[in-house]
């Protein structure tokens, strides 16, 4: 579900958490949690602002299959 975090690449800087306009992402104890994936707007702010390229966007079947 969008967005998907590559925890190997993620440096836990927290920028995506700070910038997400829908309060979807939570950085806690240095681990990035996609807590409310259903509330993602697919704006791509997290991916654009990630300094390590750790974010990819995946679309749910609800969007791709209809």
């Amino acid at each position: 579900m969008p967005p998907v975090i590559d925890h190997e690449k993620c440096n836990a800087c927290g920028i995506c958490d700070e910038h997400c306009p829908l309060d979807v992402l939570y950085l806690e104890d240095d681990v990035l949690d996609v807590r409310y994936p259903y509330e993602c707007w697919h704006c791509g702010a997290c991916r654009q602002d990630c300094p390590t390229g750790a974010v990819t966007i995946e679309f749910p079947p609800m969007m791709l299959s209809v």
Partner: protein
Amino acid sequence: MQSGQDYRIEADVAIIGGGTAGVNSAMAAAELGLKVLVVEKANINRSGAIAGGIDHFHAFLESGEDWDTREAWLKYVGGLAKGAVNLKVHEAVCCEEMKAAIERVEQIGIPLRDAGTGKFYRTQALGMPGPYAINFNGKMLKPKMAEEVRRRGCRVLDRVQVTNLFLHEGEMAGFTGYDIRSGDFYQIRAKAVIISTGNTNRMYRSQTGNPFNLWYCPACTGDLHRQAFDADVELANMEYTRMTIVPKGFSAPGFNAFFGMGSRLINSLGENFMQNVHPMGDRAPRNYMVWGALQELKEGRGPIYMDCSHLKEKEREHLFTTLGYDKDTLPDFFIKKGYNLEGTMIEMTVSEPMQARPSEQCGSGIKIDERCASNIPGLFAAGDSSDQMGCLHMGVAGGYAAGKNAAEYARLAKQLRPLDDKKIKAEKYRIFKPLEKKSGMSYWEFEDIVRNITTDHFGPVKTENSLKAALQKLGGLDAAREDLKADNLHELMRVHEAMNIQQVAKITATAARARKETRFPPYHYRADFTETDDENFCGLIVVNKGAGGEIQTRFEPLSYDI
């Protein structure tokens, strides 16, 4: 879950909503040397309609072409938004500020001109008489504007949801809010307040059923429309139900890019049906495009497709690049769906409806005058949350105008007005109450009920009886508000949003009931009054709160003799 610390903040100018309009207001007020505060529910770096990017800026540039003058622009605006746009306000907040707005965007480091040619890349759609839309790469526009706001010394409170406005002797005194992560409670006083919180989304069912898969920002939920109404602020143009054409499965923007580049809509019979709907065909105003598409889908000639196959390779490349500027993830979506540059037909549909302006050149919300002032002294509005502004160009231009006017007002105001401690205490209790509930209704269920009522009864076709039924059902939900629960602060924010959406839905239905005609079909299509009636309805339905808390309306005519 407890609430956090209590904070009191004072400012000369406080701006609620740090989207495009809000950050431009902040820049203006700071430039005049005032103490400026921006309060934003998300983070001003990436908030509001252009959080992830934008690809077009509408403008007249005085290039020497006859369509490119201020007079031609005003003629276009008056024709496009007749009955909704106040041209005197438009001149003051848009035309007067247009040149400076373009310069400001470029000064903060976002080129509007093509790097190769040094010229503006301009396209024509949406009923324009000439190519008014400047195509540009605005993916970094929002963070750059945010950086400028901070550079100018404005104080920014990110992640604070504003919950209510407070007046003192009929004038703006301040507002309350809380931090959606810490639960800290804020009471803020300011000499002047600007509201710039966008339109109301999540108010109707979306195409895939997920209320966050929307064309416009799902974080904009009419919070300040509701609060303004409760503070006796007048609203206008609230009856309109805006929609657009979006890719099937993904309610993403891209309309301006597709049609600006010359793409065509075709039905499943291969017919370019817009030719029969409007003399401008696929370059018609947005509402007629939606109207045409709705008919095709309703009458069984769907699916409808975006046909780009006749475009030259270079044009297609430009189109797909610019689509990614407007919605960062849209090119990924197209690739995942198997669409490619070689002119595959892209399946499209009609987006979810929303509470918003009926055209690109006016607004829907807090009624403003030439100084961006509402009827409440000290309260101003800008951008999509005002009744006269919308779109990027007016967010930048008009946002700045609101900032200047509010700063002027704040300068002349002798002192801050007081907040009533008792009312603030009661508000704090109201805000956090859903956290105390162990069981009850979720914001999700409540919002879904609202969406079902709005969509079934006025999404978008309306009649006297459908609106009456909607209002009865929406009113019946009032009791459920007391039952709403939140398990954490994120859910608390959503609970307050859900209640605001419900109240805006009532305001929209009430205003739509008063407009007994059709205008901008299908944005306001009355099946019982199918004609546009300029004699009786060329103007604004103005909404305010009656003495008993009821929603009341009056009509204010507009004239177009420019």
